[in-house]
Structures are given as structure tokens and as C-alpha cells.
């Protein structure tokens, strides 16, 4: 068994304290920080790399290259080490020191891109590097690779259905590549067409909800399927920070900011529902890679 074999099958946790005032509505969260590199991105990274292995595009001589705001990069770095492949990652220069250090510790290489251009700058730079020497690289292109969506269709979506014993009525989560949202939504709707799927968006093009893309102002991922969203809700970075602190202090869940955004949105949605509803969201990553951020030091 290798580290790639322990990706997925994460617990579905009940947020009993945060959801305590919901009459008859259950609030559940898929604890994706249980994945071996600490985030939901292990699923897509594993699927894309194994797909590359299977179709012969990823050989040991090739270097894995892609753009990332951090979590996919950490997943590639871990798996690249396990598979014996080099890894080069393009990421915005304002990514956290913790993320960069984790990636470097796995032996991967980082190319920092212009902070002002955010993840779009990293995406364009990675694409250009790949196109300049395609023989040298394996480019999973997480924003446009259907295998990313498939990993969630075949994995996360099935797990949520089974772990909730088919009781899930609503699924709500934010979008980076949109792989989790699109794949899980499609699977749940295949199981039960009445399940409502809701996408979470930052309330501003300038935001601090890492890994989350403001679709209206950024390069739209090719795998994004707008049609699967029954609704779109907006969350401020400040509300995401506040819920991230609550998750740590009330539920004992040290998770990242996008998890806080998801749970804030899930709680707001749950408050509009009546008894019997089961709202499922995603705790995308561990909070340990955000400890240098000052929002932890606020009281409320």
C-alpha cells in the first residue's frame, strides 16, 4: 500500500454545536482534511496522476507541472515523491509561507508568479511553460481536466450518499477548479434528482477565501458546469474567518478559510429549511497551513 491508496473515504461529521439551533435540520461536513496531504485536492491529484500513468503520458522522466494556489500543489508534491517524478508548481507569490515550505519539503520546485495576478497569473505561466516544452512535462491542467470532476463523481459523491444513508437533501460548497462541486452535484442528482446543489462564491473579486475562485472576474475553468447549480450564494471573507474560528473553538475542527466559508453558507441555508433536511458541505483542508494568519488571533 502506498500513500496514494489512502486517499478518500473521509468521515462525514455532524456539526452538532454549530447546528444546535436548527430545528430538525442536520448539518454534516465531509472532513477532507483527513486525506493524506491534508486536503480535498488529494482526490483530483491522485486521479489525474494515475490517469496519466495509465495512458502513458506520465513517465518517470517527466516532470509534473501545474498551477496551484497551494493545496493541489501540496498533493502533487506528496504524490510526485511517492511516484518518483519531479514536480514544478506555479503559484502566486502571496501564497502562505507554510504552503511553500510544505511543498519544498517534499522536494518539489516552486515558481512564484505575480501576486497581483492571483491564480490566473499562475495558470497562464504554467500553461506557457508546458507549451514551451511539452515533451518534458506532464501537465494535468486541473482547471480543464475532466478526470478532476470524475474523481468526485466516483468518490466523494458516492461516499456522501452512502454515509448519509441516502438522506442528503442539500449539498453546498465553494469552487476553485469547481471539480468537487460539479462532480459531487452530478452524482447526487443521479441518485436523487430532487437533491439541491448550491455553489458558494466570494462576495468580492478581491477576497481572502483561499483556493476559491470568483467566477465572474477570473478565467473560468473548462470543467465548470454552471448548469448543476440550483443556486449560488455569496460569502464575505470576514464571515468565513469568523466561522473558521468557531469550527476550531466549538467543534474542535482546525480547518482552513474555505471550510469556514462553506460552513457559514451551509448554516445560512439550513436556517431557511424545515425539519428533515440534511445539508452536507465540505471541510476542504486543515487549518495548520494558515496559522501565520492574524485572523486566528481575533476573539469572536
Amino acid at each position: 500500500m502506498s500513500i496514494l491508496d489512502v486517499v478518500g473515504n473521509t468521515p462525514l461529521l455532524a456539526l452538532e454545536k454549530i447546528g444546535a439551533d436548527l430545528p430538525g435540520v442536520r448539518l454534516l461536513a465531509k472532513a477532507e482534511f483527513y486525506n493524506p496531504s491534508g486536503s480535498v485536492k488529494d482526490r483530483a491529484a491522485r486521479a489525474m496522476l494515475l490517469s496519466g500513468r495509465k495512458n502513458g503520458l506520465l513517465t518517470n522522466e517527466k516532470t509534473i507541472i501545474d498551477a496551484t494556489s497551494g493545496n493541489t500543489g501540496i498533493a502533487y508534491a506528496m504524490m510526485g515523491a511517492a511516484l518518483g517524478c519531479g514536480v514544478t508548481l506555479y503559484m502566486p507569490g502571496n501564497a502562505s509561507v507554510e504552503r511553500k515550505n510544505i511543498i519544498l519539503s517534499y522536494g518539489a520546485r516552486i515558481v512564484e508568479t505575480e501576486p497581483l495576478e492571483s491564480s490566473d497569473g499562475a495558470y497562464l505561466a504554467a500553461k506557457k511553460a508546458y507549451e514551451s516544452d511539452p515533451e518534458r512535462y506532464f501537465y494535468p491542467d486541473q482547471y480543464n481536466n475532466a478526470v478532476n470532476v470524475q474523481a468526485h463523481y466516483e468518490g466523494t459523491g458516492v461516499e456522501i450518499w452512502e454515509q448519509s444513508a441516502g438522506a442528503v437533501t442539500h449539498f453546498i460548497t465553494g469552487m476553485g477548479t469547481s471539480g468537487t462541486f460539479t462532480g459531487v452535484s452530478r452524482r447526487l442528482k443521479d441518485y436523487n434528482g430532487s437533491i439541491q446543489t448550491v455553489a458558494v462564491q466570494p462576495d468580492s473579486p478581491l477576497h481572502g477565501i483561499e483556493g476559491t475562485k470568483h467566477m465572474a472576474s477570473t478565467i473560468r475553468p473548462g470543467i465548470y458546469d454552471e448548469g448543476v447549480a440550483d443556486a449560488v450564494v455569496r460569502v464575505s471573507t470576514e464571515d468565513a474567518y469568523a466561522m473558521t474560528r468557531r469550527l476550531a473553538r466549538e467543534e474542535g475542527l482546525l480547518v482552513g478559510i474555505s471550510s469556514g466559508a462553506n460552513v457559514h453558507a451551509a448554516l445560512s441555508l439550513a436556517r431557511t429549511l424545515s425539519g428533515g433536511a440534511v445539508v452536507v458541505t465540505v471541510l476542504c483542508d486543515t487549518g495548520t497551513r494558515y496559522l501565520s494568519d492574524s485572523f486566528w488571533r481575533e476573539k469572536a
Partner: protein
Amino acid sequence: MAVTILIPTALRVFAGVQAEVTVEGDTAGRAIEAFADKFPDIRQHLFDENNALRSFVNVYIGEKNIKTVNGLDTPVRDGDALMLVPAIAGGTGAI
């Protein structure tokens, strides 16, 4: 004091699709205020309801985050460039 504001791509649509603009101000706060006055649609993205800079917005003068100096009261010199960057990944260190 003429200082340059380096605008993140996410906000350029609110600033005539410019990558940078020059404003007047003797502190980082006054320069950013002047920027928001010049492009009023940008204000809500930078400041909260109490007119404080939103907590995830980092302002760099060169490689220095003003949060590590005197915040919005950090003095600026003629010709300085102020870069507005979201703390997208919790980054607080030098960029």
C-alpha cells in the same frame, strides 16, 4: 507626494482597466483613500463599513507589509509604489 497604486487584476475593472494609477498622499492610508475617492466602486472591496481596511487586504511598499510597520499611518515617499494584495493563502510574510 505622488505615489503609485498597483492594482490587483481582480479590481482593475473598477479602475478603468488600469494596472496602476498615481495618487497623492503622505501616508499609505491617505494614498489608498485618494485611490478609493478616484474610483468609488472600489471602496466596498477595500474598506469595511467602519471605513477600516478589510482585514484580508495586505498593502506592500516594496517588500514591506504596512501591517508590520505603522499600518495605514505608515509614511510614504514621493515615487513609492503601493501594492494591494489579498491574503489569499494566509500569507503574511515577505512576498
